[in-house]
Each structure stands twice: as C-alpha cells, then as structure tokens.
C-alpha cells in the first residue's frame, strides 16, 4: 500500500558511472548500465508498457458505446455558424427545428444539389441577426430556400444565457484555437470520461434507447440532433414547460415586427422564404395559444404579405417524447411531409397574389 523503496529496487541515487549513449532517438530510453546493452526502443519494457497503455486508451475510448453528451457539445453549435455559403436550403428555428427536422429528407424531394441543413438552436429567438446569419449560409447561385419554423417561443425577447444562437456566437468569439481542434478536444474529453459505474456497465452499453430521463442524442453533421428521452407523461410535461416558459418571458410584438422586416429584406434579396408552425400535440398547442397569446393567423398574413409562403403540411402520426420535441422516426416523417409541402408551395407575390396566377 505504500511506496516501497527498498534496496532491492536497485535504486541507488548515485551515478552509475557509465555514461549512456545519447543523441540517437532510437536509443533515447535505453541508456544505462552495461547490463542493458544497446537494445532498441521496442525492446524497452517501459516504452512498450506506455505504448500499450496509450493504445488501450485509444481503443476503449473509440469503441465504447456509452458516449453521450450530457449537455450539448459546444463545437456542434459553433460549426453551424461557420458553415459558409454553400447550401441550397436551410431550416431555421429553435429546438423544435434542431431536434425535429431531418434535412436529409429534403434533398431528394426538393431535387437539391448542394444539400439542406438545419440551423436550429436551443431557445433561439427569430431576431433579424439570427435569420440573416442563416441566410448567409445559402449558396448565392443555388435556389436559396429558407424555411422558418415559427413557434410561440421563438417570438419572445431573446434571453441571454438561454438563447443557443447568442451563446454559440459568444463561444465562437472566445475560442482560442481552431474550431476543428476544439471539436477534437471536446469529443475526446467525452470519450475519456469515466464509465458511470453507478448506473451499471450493462445499462450503459445497451443504452440504444432512452430508458431514463436523460437524453439519448445523436448529432448529425447537417445540424439535426436525433433525440429521445423517457418522460412519464409527455403531454403534461409539455404543457407545464410551455406555461412556465411564458411566465418567465412573454411574447414580444417587437420580435414579430423585426421578423417581418427581416423577411421582407430576404425576399427582396432573392431568398425563397417558406414559413410554418412546427407540430406539437394538440393539448400543448392549445396551451401555447392560451399562454402565449399569439395570433398565428396574423403572423401568417404578415409573412405572406412580404412574399413568404406559409405552409401547413399534413403530418402523419407523430410521437413527441416530452410533449414538445419529436423522436427520431417522427422527425424523419415530419421532415418528409414538410419537404413535400415545400415542393408544392408556390410563393405569393408581395401584394398577396401568387406569381403566375
């Protein structure tokens, strides 16, 4: 139990009297007494032990199946800000977008060449800065389709520290290393995290589906976070979250006005704007209308007046795991329905008449 330093350990502090050969990298670890000779690095047990340790750490960290972010990884959101102007279509909104829209379902349905991405951020407010940052990722030579998910929560005044878009901008500003390296560091920190033995190894290894109230999340390169979570009563949980959130931060008419102005500007610059209200269970939608007090008919009319296309896709049977967000299969189904609706949508003219009609 203690650090034994008996004489049998051959640890004489004095010099051996035999100066080692140095200068050869291959011989770096093997100088010493005459008994050691001049064998190569690969015959040194210390070196081999450390090599075996590093190899085992890398293997375990790479192969372990229980890795998951307890919170959201910072690099994921910062990367969204660094995408650059190379996309055909972008879906913009809050957590209902980043959890509930799978952009890969859009590509074949809309006949896209340069892909669709998900520009959703946690608790993001649809401010002009946010919408313009999303528009900046559209390829100027592409069809330039922007799909805005208008939720009651996204029309509240932005909350510093809660708005994921603002937080990502601040994180990016503070970053002292290239984002690519920051991502590697953050991912490896997670992979090197200790096994949570309190939850049992079996549970972690077999955790392919949510069995606890922790999120099971898969981060896709196109910005979608495929997620699931065990919530005992999703509807009640969703209603409670909606009521609590609107008590903390009410609807802001100013945000709605700013959004309309930003939409006008985008349409004028040639962006094809599509807007919709993401699906939530009817009970939660009613609670939102009740607590938020937002007239979505007015929002739709104002957006259409400035040239956006408002769509109401017919959604298949969907599952919301917490009353607000869709699980993976439902997100795919909802995305397909949304893409079909976008494909059918003809944008109105700025005076409310559809072009070509």
């Amino acid at each position, binding site marked *: 139990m203690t650090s034994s330093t008996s004489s049998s*350990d051959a640890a004489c502090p004095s010099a051996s009297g035999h*100066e080692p050969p140095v200068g050869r990298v291959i011989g770096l670890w093997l100088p010493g007494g005459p008994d050691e000779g001049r064998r190569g690095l690969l015959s040194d047990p210390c070196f081999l032990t450390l090599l075996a340790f590093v190899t085992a750490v890398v293997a375990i960290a790479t192969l372990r199946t229980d890795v998951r972010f307890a919170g959201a990884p910072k690099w994921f959101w910062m990367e969204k800000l660094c995408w650059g102007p190379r996309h055909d279509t972008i879906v913009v909104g809050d957590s209902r977008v980043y959890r509930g829209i799978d952009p890969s379902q859009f590509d074949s349905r809309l006949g896209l060449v340069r892909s669709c991405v998900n520009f959703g951020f946690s608790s993001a407010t649809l401010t002009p800065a946010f919408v313009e940052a999303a528009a900046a990722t559209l390829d100027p030579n592409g069809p330039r389709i922007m799909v805005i998910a208008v939720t009651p929560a996204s029309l509240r005044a932005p909350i510093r520290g809660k708005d994921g878009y603002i937080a990502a901008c601040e994180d990016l500003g503070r970053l002292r290393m290239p984002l690519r390296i920051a991502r590697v560091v953050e991912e490896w920190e997670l992979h090197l995290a*200790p096994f949570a033995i*309190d939850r049992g190894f079996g549970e972690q290894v077999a955790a392919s589906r949510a069995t606890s109230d922790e999120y099971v999340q898969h981060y896709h390169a196109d910005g979608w976070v495929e997620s699931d979570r065990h919530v005992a009563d999703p509807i009640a949980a969703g209603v409670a979250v909606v009521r609590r959130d609107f008590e903390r931060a009410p609807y802001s008419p100013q945000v709605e006005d700013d959004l309309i102005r930003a939409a006008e500007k985008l349409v004028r610059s040639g962006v094809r704007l599509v807007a919709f209200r993401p699906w939530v269970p009817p009970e939660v939608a009613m609670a939102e209308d009740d607590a938020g007090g937002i007239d979505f008919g007015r929002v739709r009319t104002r957006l259409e007046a400035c040239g956006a296309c408002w769509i109401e896709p017919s959604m298949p049977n969907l599952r919301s795991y917490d009353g607000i967000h869709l699980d993976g299969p439902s997100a795919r189904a909802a995305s397909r329905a949304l893409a079909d609706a976008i494909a059918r949508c003809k944008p109105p003219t700025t005076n409310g008449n559809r072009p070509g009609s």
Partner: protein
Amino acid sequence: MGMSFMSGSFLVLMALFMIGWGFVRPHRRLRLIAITATSFVFYGWWDWRFLPLLVATGLVDYLAALGMESWPRWRKCLLWASVVSNIGVLVFFKYLSFLVSQIGEAIDISAPVSDMASSIILPIGISFYTFQSLSYTIDVWRGRIRAVRDPFHFFAFLSMFPQLVAGPIVRATELLPQLETPGNFNRANRMHGLRLASWGYLKKAVVADSLAPFVNEAFSSNPELGLAWWIVTAAFALQIFCDFSGYSDIACGIAYWMGYRFPENFRRPYAAIGPRDFWSRWHITLSSWFRDYVYIPLGGSRRGSIRTSASLTFTMLISGLWHGANWTFIVWGAYHAALLQVERAMNGGRSTELRGVWRLAAWAATLVAVLAGWVIFRAESLGQASSVLRQMLGASGAGELPSMIAVPSIALAAATIAAACASYALAKRIPWLAPSSWPTPFQCAAIVAALLASVFLRGPGSDFIYFQF
C-alpha cells in the same frame, strides 16, 4: 486550471520532458536548466504570479547560504534572515487572513485591512517549498552541506516539479548531491518508477476520488448520522491516505524514472501500533523535518520530562498549524500531542514490543484514536468536530447515511484497498507475489491495468487534498 498530475497539460509536459531528458541528462548544466525550466513551467501554469515569489524566496536562501560561507561572522544573522523571510512569507500568505479575523473578533479592525487580508491568494505548495528551502540554509549553517554556487543547481533542488507543490519534502542533503550526478537512469529504475506512479494514480483517481463526494457531502450537510459517522470517518481516512500517498507515489515514481530517489513519505500508517509509530509512518518527510529542525533544537527528549513534554506539544501544535490557518488544525495538533504524551507516560518513553492480543488491542486503539483525530482535521469547525465526535461515541444522533452514497464507487474503492492489503500481506509470506518480483510482462500488464482504471474508473473528486496546505 492548474497543472496537477491528473491534468492533460501535465501529461503533455511530462511527455516532452521524457523525450528531452535522455538528451540533457548527461550534461550537468543542461540537466539542471531543464529541471528548473520544466519546474517553473509546471508551477507557473497554476498562476504565473506565484513564480516571482518562489524565485524571490529561493534567492534569499541561495544568497544567505553563500554569505554564510563567505562571511562566517555573519552566519547567524544570515540564518535568521533566511528563517524570518521564509516564515514571514508563510505567515503573510497563509496565516494573515486568519490572524486578522481572530484579532478582529477581539478588537475592531477597519474594513479595508480585513478585506485586504481576506483577499490574499495562497500560493500553491508554499508550505512545502519554504520548508525545503529552510532545511537548506539550516543545513549549510550547521555545516552539514556546502552552499551551492550554481543558481540552477539550487533552483533545480528547490523547485523540482514532481515534489514542488505537495512533497515529499526532500532535504538539501538528500537531493543536492543527487542532482550533481546524471542519476541512475537504468531500466530497473524506470520500471520501478512507472510501477510507483501507476499505483499512485490508481490510489488517487479510483479510491480517493471515488470516496471524495461521499465524505464532502457528509461534512458539508452535517447530518445527524449517529454511529454511522464512523463509516464516514473511515472513508475520509482512506481518502486522505490514498490522495496524499498517491501524490507521493507519483512524485517518487517520476523521480525514479529520472534516476533520482525521493525519501519515503508513507509506510502503511494505519498499521501503526501507537501514536509515535503512526507519526513514523504518516507524512514521514514532514514529521522528520519537525523532529530535526524544531523538536531536537528545542531540547528533544534529553532535558527532562517537563521540557520534553513542552517541546513535543509545541512541535505538534506547529505541525497542526502547518496544515492550515484554522483552529481545527491547531486542535488536531494538540490532540496528537496529547496522544503522544499519554503514550510516553504509559511506557516511560521507551519503545516496548507488544505481542499477541496486546499488539492487536494497541493497533485497534491507535486506529480509533487516529480516526477520531481525522474528524477534527476534516471538520469545517470545532463545533462540527465536537458534534460528530459526540455522535460517534453514541451520545446523540441516529440517522441514515447521506442519500447520495454511491455504493458502486465505494465498493470499487474498498475492493481496490482490500486487494492491495491482501496482496501486501500475502507477499510477505509468498515473496513471488510481490509485484517487483513478477515477470516483466505481468508487471507491464498490471501497470497498464492500473493506468486504465485511473482513466476510465476514476471518481468525480478533483484536486489533491494537500494542495491547500
């Protein structure tokens, strides 16, 4: 974020140092510069503002020692200059806030003064390196060692990174001559160093860090646990042992790897038979420092029983105060002084060899006394210590263990300790069970397993406990 042994930045620094060490080791100047530079990077990584203090206090002692040899008439003055500067720095950074708060309770102290005192940041490892530096000037003054002329030689000794922030406290007489040589950089030493370091990491990461949340929760929420406080106290006893001896093992392991040797800091302290035996096994480098530089100069045991008792009490009080500016540490020192006095009274100051059931009883009594002492040491206040000790004696409280008790973590920690104890006990009877006698591939596999456990089974605890001292 500082550069503790558990941090990624330290592993990077260590890897770079290991690569470079083979090249610089044979060249005296290069070797000393490499050790000093690496140590300064290691220390400055915590907070670069601490570095000038380390250099300044070191320079005072370096120059004082040179002065003692150049101007023998001023030897005593220079020694006092060194002692006053070291103790002064220690008092200012470590005890001023405590002193001001204590005086402030008696008399009214202006707010700016108390604010200034409470805003002083304690430089990490200050208690360790000031003692190490003091031992150098005192030994030069006593004529036990010559003053070193090369400043890199001195600073390599003072700041040698494996032991800079939490010991072991290595005397100048032990380390300075070693640093003159390129060390014994052979395969056996490197293997032994790796074995020690991996064992240290296992103790710290798996055992101490797994127990830390349980102990911290118990002492911060201060529940009425009744007799269950014995479990919390035993957990803390294991935690502090594995934490501190783990650090010492890593430090000694790195030194071994470099070809040098640090003194032993722990020798199975919980197997002690009697308080005196405990102090010859626990934090050995500190207790021997106090013995040689405080207790013996005060007269030791040679000037009658009253003087001996006074010297012993004073030494233990100072030893307690060394651990921190808090009444709990002072009382802890006084408690151990009392235990030592009782032991002296019982055996008349002579070592007696106990056998059989008496030996077992003495061991059990020592363990109980040490555990009670740990309550005083760990408690947030004397009031809490008193309350916990009353509950441990069954005088009050009968609650349940904290709900956050992480059974698998504690079971893992207990299993590690049990396996270590069993292997130690068996190795005494069956020599080939001792890890050092295993075939090399088995040793390598054990090291890899210990290091892997330190990475993937580590507990949520954080810094080494002794960093705060």
